[in-house]
């Protein structure tokens, strides 16, 4: 049994137009899965269905063997945390410390234990020296880290990042992607990231590509990017490294390396042969 199983799911906001159309896939425990697709591909809808923000009317989704429906939603939510797009819309506490503690208070964790837990997760996201700060005085990346610490403190099995880096500046993006990668090394946590950031896909284990509500591909990242043309046809971009490969291929030069340094070495070698 996979941790998350999506079976023949369809969804329509209004009757005549399916935004999700007969999609099936499985997500294994401990993996880091990115979901990509153009605007309107159905990726956000898919995420909402998995977390039960939208009702599954056609097909079935199970999380850890439990069917996602109105009756079970409470049980399923305890297993999940969601980091949203806008870092400003997810604060409750007046300080970083209070904010991380909020979920724990809800869970009725005893106050004597609380401090240690808050500190543990603040450290995990690198915010130890910011505990007394007001969240609105933090940068976008720091705000998202507060949100992530609050979620980690609840010890979820699954963390869903819903375009969590798209409103951040380049430094904030880099910061959060690094944190996501670090979290993915913990095999008790399964990460699902709905993302526009094609470079992020390179650091994930698997990638689900949606197009017009249908499953287009479910592969390892290198397989996904092996066919740039196919991706462009469905309005998706490829990572920079693949663009370099493509640009040189057009000039009849084949590059095999997976990083820029390697490619420049290859270019030097073919230069000295001539």
């Amino acid at each position: 049994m996979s941790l998350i199983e999506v079976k023949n799911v369809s969804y329509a906001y209004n009757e005549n137009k399916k935004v999700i159309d007969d999609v099936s896939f499985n997500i294994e425990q401990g993996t880091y899965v990115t979901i990509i697709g153009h605007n309107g591909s159905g990726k956000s809808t898919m995420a909402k269905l998995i977390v039960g923000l939208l009702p599954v009317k056609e097909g079935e989704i199970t999380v850890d063997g439990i069917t996602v429906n109105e009756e079970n939603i409470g049980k399923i939510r305890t297993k999940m945390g969601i980091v949203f797009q806008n870092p400003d819309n997810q604060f409750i506490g007046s300080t970083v410390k209070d904010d991380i503690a909020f979920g724990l208070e809800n869970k009725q964790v005893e106050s004597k234990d609380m401090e240690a837990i808050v500190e543990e997760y603040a450290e995990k996201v690198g915010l130890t020296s910011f505990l007394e700060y007001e969240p609105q005085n933090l940068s976008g990346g720091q705000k998202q880290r507060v949100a992530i610490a609050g979620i980690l403190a609840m010890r979820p099995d699954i963390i869903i990042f819903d375009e969590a880096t798209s409103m951040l500046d380049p430094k904030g993006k880099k910061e959060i992607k690094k944190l996501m990668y670090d979290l993915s090394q913990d095999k008790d946590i399964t990460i699902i990231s709905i993302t526009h950031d094609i470079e992020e896909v390179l650091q994930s284990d698997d990638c689900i590509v949606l197009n017009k509500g249908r499953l287009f591909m479910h592969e390892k990242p290198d397989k996904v990017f092996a066919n740039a043309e196919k991706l462009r046809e469905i309005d998706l971009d490829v990572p920079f490294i693949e663009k370099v490969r493509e640009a040189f291929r057009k000039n009849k030069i084949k590059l095999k390396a997976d990083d820029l340094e390697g490619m420049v070495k290859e270019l030097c070698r073919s230069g000295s042969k001539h």
Partner: protein
Amino acid sequence: MPIRFKALSYIYNKDMPYAHKALDDINLEIREGIVTAIIGETGSGKSTLVEHLNALLLPSEGSLEILDYNLIANQKQKFLKPLRKDVGLVFQFSEYQLFEETILKDVAFGPLNFGFPLEEALKRAAEALKMVDIPEELFSVSPLEISGGQKRRVAIAGIIACDPKIIVLDEPTAGLDPRGAKQIIDLFISLNRKLKKTIIIVSHDNEMVYNYCDETVVLSKGKIRYHGPTLELFADQEKLKEFNMLEPQIVTFRNLLIENGFKVSNEARTLDMLAKEIAGQIRK
């Protein structure tokens, strides 16, 4: 005539306990007819700066000369309406501001507001929509029923329909997929090249800035840290470090090529051009 910021400061909540100087003694000349990027970290004052350009904000200190207008701190302004017609500002996530029943009406709202008769306003709206690649069959559709990228282009059409001389775009490609982003970039490039509009873009996308913007202004904590040719900025690793900027990957690649003995010209700002130059050297 260039746009001139002269010792301009802007203070939010002036004379209040939470007063905050968002722009601090800005002296800046933005050239007419080119594409200028304004970059800097979140909170550096980028949006505050551009909101002065059509007098959404007025200087707390100093002045701003733009076209034939002169905005001086603490003086009553009389010509805000013509200024706002001449300087179009496209906000961040501008698609949230669409509100009319149909796309055509939404785009016509600006020209109507600036006093054009209905027929002329609708004509301008239709032309602007054509320019942003919105097909005619969508004109009578509600702006809420189209995709995110299309909404953004409709919002930009609303500005183009007023025929401004200067167009300011605050993060125009944020949150769009690559094709949507590319369409917006192509659009402002053609507005600049074909219609000679002065374009000012606030952006976090350094790669886009490197590829397409003639000059770049770097803001940090309300002050100008750099203003000059975009190429010179990105060629200077010391500066990038000093401004806490990530180097675009194309610059990293370009530098690696140069370090390894390849020759790269200043014109090679896109991957296609780089690859062509390098391939030429390998075959020699």
